[in-house]
């Protein structure tokens, strides 16, 4: 088996962060805190999705890098 690359570690971390931040955004949208408006919670949900997609891209880069000699 080829060695894992740094892209794999970043990919997994970003997938986890994407899920956590989207989840937090949805939770706080229904249980809002006094200091923040809806814009911040919507941003949290969208940014979580961006992180998740970035995580998938990093995992694909890892797959590609491991195929190289």
């Amino acid at each position, binding site marked *: 088996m080829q*060695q*894992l690359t*740094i892209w794999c*570690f*970043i990919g*997994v*971390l*970003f997938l*986890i*962060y994407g899920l*956590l*931040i989207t*989840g*937090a*955004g949805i939770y*706080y949208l229904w249980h809002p*805190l006094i*200091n*923040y408006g809806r*814009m*911040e*919670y919507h*941003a*949290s949900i969208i*940014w*979580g999705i*961006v*992180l998740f997609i*970035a995580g998938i891209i990093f995992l694909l880069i890892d797959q590609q*890098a491991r195929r190289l000699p």
Partner: protein
Amino acid sequence: MHISHLHLIDWIIIAVYFIAIIVIGFYTAGRAKTSTDYFLAGRRNSTWIAGIAFLSANMGTLELLGMAGQSYQHGMLTAHFYLIGAIPAMLFLGIFMLPMYYSKKIHSVPAYLYLRFGEATRALNAMAFAIMTLLMAGINMYAMALVLHIFVGWNLYASIYISSITIAIYIGLGGLASAIFSEVLQFFLIWFGLILAMILGVIHIGGWHEVIARVPESYLHLWANTGASADNPLFINWLGLAMGLGFVLGFGYWTTDFLVVQRAMSAKNLKSSQMTPILAAFFKMALPLIVIVPGLLAIALLQKHVIPVPQRSDDALLLILNRYYPPGLLGLGVTALLAGFMAGQAGNVSAFNTVFTFDIYRAHLKKQASDKHYVMVGRIVTIIGILLSIVTAYWAMSMPSIMDYMQALFAIVNAPLLATILLGMFCKRINGFGAFWGLLGGMVISTILFLGLKFNVMPVQIVAFTPLASPMAANFWRAVWAWLITFIVTILLSLLTAKPAVGPIKELVYRLTILPNYRHDVWFRRPGFWASMALFIFIVLNIVFW
């Protein structure tokens, strides 16, 4: 009273980061079998990984917060640190200097000095670099603890010990490979962790034009107000900027500081090594988006009473994060700051263990030992280095003015070294005698000038040509003087003593090195093409924001 408050989700996000870098440490430990694996990450890194690590080694959180604070105070003048203070030097390193650094498969910059000039010059630089790196590591650690204390109310001592133990585990186990992995991770965490706050701030205020409308006109130019020192808030003219920051400090840091050059040396071949700083130059020019924009944005947000008045200018970025990041995103923002600190520490520690093991321990204490022995020494030195940096952190805590001295160290160590290395690489007539005394002379002069200004023994106009010069302007000019003294003394003493033999300095001097020929490569795979592209963008940015 601290600025922000963490929720459970934020703590989980921070904990996941710590788990990730410990896992990286254990994973890379299995790959660190030889000294080249441990100290140079096996020389197997691609351009992308080495390039991102090259930039990240200099992208610590202290720098991000400090520069955002500077742009809040001085506007776009701060962007010079990302343009003229970096790009020409990075491109010069890639095109002209790395063939000599890389050709002999040396482990460090002091090792180059040894091959080119002999033991005395190496010992002088290795000792100075080791001390500077340890002090930097300690100050960085204290500053990290202080920022986290102010931002989220963490205990100073707990921050220092938890980060130290984590760094000891992952650098002790994996060496440079661990450091580089954490730096690449940090790079993406910083971008994804901070840029959203700027986007939300700009949207909230009504667009970028609204930000610009609220910032003083003089804050929006790079060069227009540098005709005379009194015309800009830094009190420095264009010549001081170009010579001090653009040449001596910029080239001194990016082309001779082993902390960054080590990343280029870890690349898998010479071409990748040359491409390392060239690739990093593109990212460097993008950094003002998360460093200069927050400073300008903070001015605008403050006018609209969206954020409170920063108690210290360095708090500008933290206040923006606090305003726009709800729980979850705040955890990501704090993780990005933490990652910046941890990677900065990792960089210091990995550079220190390499220079100590090869240029002090192997050179003077144990010349003949197995490769395995030196890896073991490297691991022990990592632990010792971290313990010493904790001591330095405590020292910094008890002596706040030490921060001022740290600013000076760079001009004392790197500015003279730049003259020594440039003369060594591009002038074959320079010998070891001239190099040693020139380097020592430059370091001594820089120290004397610093102490003279610090204790008001000499007026600042003697160094910086104007009594109005800011401490930063004085620092730029002091570096120029240190460089000039080294340059002149080295040449004079070399001309008065014997020529060096040509044999031993082959491949160490530009004209005695067979330079790589990329004519057989397609144009878009040549380092020269990408360096030209970076230079073009650099010139355009300077004209657009003139």
